[in-house]
Structures are given as C-alpha cells and as structure tokens.
C-alpha cells in the first residue's frame, strides 16, 4: 500500500519509473488473487473480465488517479467509473490494495449485508463514484461528470473502463458523439478489449472491427496498446492527459482470464460462474500465491 496518506498528485510524487512499474505489477497480482478469492466465496461472479482488466485498474489506482484513499471526498479528485460493472471484483480488490476498504471485508462479495454488491453501488461504498451494472450507463455518467467538472472549472479528470461487448450498446455511441461535440478532453475511456463477451467472441456475437476507425470517426483521440503492459498503459494515460479539445480512448488489447491459464480466452469463464475449491486453488497458484496465502484467501468466510 502506498506510503502517502494525504491527497497527492501521484504524477508528481511518483517514485522512479521502474519502482512504480514494480509496485503496479504487485498491485495487479493482488487484484487478480483477491478477485478470484472473492468470486470463490460468493459462489458466483465474473472472473474473466476481472482478470483482463487488473493491469489497467492497477495503473489507474496506482499512478493515474490523483488521490489516495483519504481524499475520496475531495471535490478535486479525479473520478473513476467502472462502466463494465460486472468487473466489480477487480475494483474491490484494487481499492482494498490501496486502503479504500478492508481487504478481508471485500471478500464478502455478493453477500447479504455486505456493501460489496455484485455490481458497484454508490450508496454502499463511499469511493464508488456511481452505480453500474447495466452496460453503457457508466460511460454516460462519466461524461456527465466530465461536463460538470469543466463547467465548474474543476481540473479533475474522469476515467471510465468499458468492456468490448459493452460497445454494442447504442448509448455508448450517443456518449461518444456527445463527448466529442463538447470537446471533453478531461474524459478518458479505456476499453478492456479482451475480444470476448458473455456468450462468445465479439466476432461471433456482433463484430466490432474496425474498432479504432469507429472511434476516430467519432472524433476521439485514439491509442491502441497492450493492456497488460504497464509501461504502455501508463504512457497511454500520459498522452491522453495531454489531449487538447478531444476526449481520449485507449483501446487496450487484453486477454480475458489473463493470469489463470485455464480461463484465458475461454468464453465460459465470462461468468456468472461458481468456482470450485480446486479451481480457485489452481487459479491462485497460477497467480503466484503460496500455500499459506491460498489458505488465508480461501478459508475465510463460510465456505
């Protein structure tokens, strides 16, 4: 967990690039392991899209968002909206890693009475910026935030993570057109382009290609990167931050299930799935957890 505890513009206070990348890689591993453990305990949830987004989330929370966990009410904080709300386990895990919530509490995913609902809910967790779960809406809400911040001359930036399947929602193109029209250069969309959605590959369900051309035609600044390469992610954010007069989209090529070999690129692991103890154990092992850590992660809770 970062040492700073007052609100800090990370971009200024960052350690050396190499140290930062190592910190982020560690945070991403933590995110994947905790997401898997929480889905195991929940008995349901979407692991594939949590794994594919872990590196992006780790970069966002570890370096890009301008605040630490004690500044969640600061009006000048950057905003992050998880538009692909079913990716909640990754959000809860990275937030736990950075001290926004208790890591063991976050394992109570989807449980009655726990604030860690299946989809993030703004009234349950103070650092969740808006409720999501219905695809397309988070992007529009983020757009509204970006518009409102600009109106109030607040320099904060707004980030939102979308799934690739989510891009089939018309609301996404309404928002894309609107953000470009209003020149919301304080808005940055990241697409977790893992090529899979609920039932199958995007190509089989509803073709998205040529995807970068679509965003360009909607007048966005477009970057295409490897969504598992921390340097590429960070530099894409830097370029997005420098965009003038245009919103930015980062098309992050990812692998659904990344880090858990038996899940990688297999549509079935989109979710909502029930992980057996053996499956969870195998996943955690692949993610580098030792025997003690596995025991600790899987033996809390009722199951």
């Amino acid at each position, binding site marked *: 967990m970062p040492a700073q505890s007052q609100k800090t513009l990370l971009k200024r206070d960052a350690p050396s690039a190499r140290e930062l990348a190592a910190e982020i890689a560690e945070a991403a591993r933590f995110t994947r392991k905790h997401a898997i453990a929480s889905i195991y305990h929940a008995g349901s949830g979407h692991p594939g899209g949590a794994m594919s987004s872990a590196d992006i989330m780790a970069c966002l929370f570890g370096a890009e968002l301008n605040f630490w966990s004690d500044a969640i009410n600061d*009006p000048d904080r950057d*905003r992050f909206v998880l538009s692909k709300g079913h990716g909640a386990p990754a959000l809860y895990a990275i937030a736990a890693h950075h001290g926004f919530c208790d890591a063991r509490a976050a394992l109570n995913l989807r449980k009655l009475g726990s604030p860690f609902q299946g989809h993030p*809910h*703004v*009234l349950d967790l103070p650092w969740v*910026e*808006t*409720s*999501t*779960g*219905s695809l*397309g*809406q988070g992007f*529009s*809400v*983020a*757009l*509204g*935030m*970006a*518009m*409102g*911040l600009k*109106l*109030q001359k*607040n320099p904060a930036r707004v980030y939102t993570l979308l799934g690739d399947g989510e891009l089939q929602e*018309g*609301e996404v193109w*309404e*928002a894309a*057109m*609107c953000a470009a*029209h209003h020149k919301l250069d304080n808005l940055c969309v990241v697409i977790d382009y893992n090529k899979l959605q609920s039932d199958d590959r995007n190509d089989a369900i509803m073709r998205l290609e040529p995807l970068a051309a679509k965003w360009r035609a909607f007048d966005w600044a477009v970057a295409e990167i490897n969504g598992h390469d921390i340097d590429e992610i960070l530099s894409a954010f830097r370029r997005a931050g420098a965009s003038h007069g245009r919103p930015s989209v980062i098309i992050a090529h990812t692998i659904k299930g990344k880090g858990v070999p038996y899940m990688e690129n297999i549509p079935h692991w989109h979710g909502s799935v029930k992980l057996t103890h053996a499956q969870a154990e195998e996943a955690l092992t692949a993610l580098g957890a030792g025997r003690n850590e596995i025991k600790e992660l899987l033996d809390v809770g009722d199951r």
Partner: protein
Amino acid sequence: MSATAEAPALIGTSGDSLREAFGKALSGLADEFPKLVVLDADIAGGTGVHHFRKSHPARFLQFGIAEQNMMAAAGGLAAVGLLPVVTTFAVFCLRAIEQARLSLAYAKRNAKIVASHPGLDVGPDGGSAQSLEDLAAFRAIPGMTVISPADPVEMALATRAILEFEGPVYMRTGRSPAMRVFGDHHTFEIGKGKIVRDGSDVTIVACGVEVSRALEAAKLLEQDGVSARVVNMATIKPIDSELLARCADETGSVVTAEDHNIHGGLGGAVAESLAATRPCPIEFIGVKDVFGASGEPEELATLYGLTAPHIAKAAKRAIARKG
C-alpha cells in the same frame, strides 16, 4: 416584404401551456439555484426550456437527440454537485427509463426529470407521441417522486418545489393551453393533495389537465343535486393517503381522473392507497387501455372519455355503488 418573412408560429408556445409556465419558472429560478443546469435533447422549443436557453445559455446543456445518454449523464452532473433538470417529451423519458432507474433513482441523485407532451393533451402528433404510460412506469421506480401539476400557477410553484426537494423527481408538464384553475395565492407542497372544491357525495381525485375538467364536472353534478368534492392530487407518488382515507370516509365513493392509461397511474395509486386504508367504490376516468390518435386535445378528450360529462357520469356510477 412578403407575408412569410415573419417567423413561423411555433405551435404550442402559447403563453398559457404548462410547459411554457415551467420554462419561464425555470428561467426565473436560475439565479436562486446557481447549481441548476438544464439538459435538452433538441426539443427545447417543445418543452419550454428555450426560455432558459435564452436567459442562461452557459447552463443549458445540449445532448442532441439521444435521451438515454442525457438521462444517465444527469447522474454524473449531479454527482459533481450540479442540479440537473432533464427535459424531453414524456414518451422519450420512457425511452430512457432504465437510465433514470439506475443512474438517478438507484444512485439517489438529486436530479429532476421534466416531461412535456403527456397523454392525449399532445393532440395532432398522434398516438405514437401520446404517452399514456409514464405515470405508471416512473411510479414503479423505488424512491421516485411523481408529480403532475394542474395549471400554470401550480406549475410555477411545483418547479420551485422540485428544485428545493432533495432526490429524484419525475414531473409532467403539458403541451396545450391549460385552463387557469388556481388564484395567485395558491400554494403547493410535494406529497399533499388538496381539496379544491368541497362536497359530500363523492370525491373526484384528479391530476394535470383533468383537474379543471373535474371542477367542471362538479358543477354539472351540482345541477343534478349531487355534491362532489374535488381533490387536486398533484403528487401521484408519494400519494396523500391520509387525505384519500378522509375523503373516502366522508364521501363514501371516489372517481379518479387522469390523462393517462387507466392502469397504473393516478387511478392505480388511489386504488392501492384506499384498499390499504378505507376501501370504497372507485370509478376510473382515463384512457381505456388503447392508444390515442391525431386530433385536437378537446376532441380526443371527448372521444376517449376524459371530459367533464364523462367524469360526472362516473361520479353517479360511483355513488350508486356505495354500500
């Protein structure tokens, strides 16, 4: 200069429609509510917010013909401390209802939805544009307040009230010239019905354009020796159950009247409330589960059974059913 050099007469910018009253009120309140921003989906001339666009252009936000994005974006605007008022036609609010549900109601945002062009009052645009479902649909969303004021005076008061109120609100205006029902000293409180004419044989509970028709019906009934009470139930949700129970007690029968499907709107709200407190015979005036058509609002009201004589007849049926 040719006759046509004049600007065309925009239909329904008639000074006395509910939407005009709303649009003007909103402009007038802008300085008092500095966080207020108004969202439009390319029909400001239809919803009345062209007044606000003119008076406060920097706080007038244009979303184009894209109601879903506009509705959810209101959630984001509210999240960063602004007070968004989403405006479009009622039927296009329905198009964005899931956004209103998740990004406004579920998130408990302090955002307002104001819908013009409800019901048969839409007139010549026809059935496709006449929303007969919005009161029912928005009433079903947990925590959503639903309001339908009766005349321009009340509309102005209600506009202030929803801005002062904390939480998501759905409010209907109206397209056509509206009868003036209330005097200058009228007051409005969210959640409170009001007896606008007293009577003892039956209570007519109405909202929106039906309030003036209900008052007319009461006069017709008086001529037949029937004493009808009229309640202006401008807040459909939360419904004023206390007042309803009292009216049921005192008059023993009820008629509901609304420019909406008979299912699920004001009639539904009154039926639910009275069944839970003081069951009594109710007759329902509204559109009987069919779509409207093109025509002038008054013609349509006659055809679909929403006029004063219809209400008066229903009142007699209700009275006849008293135990």
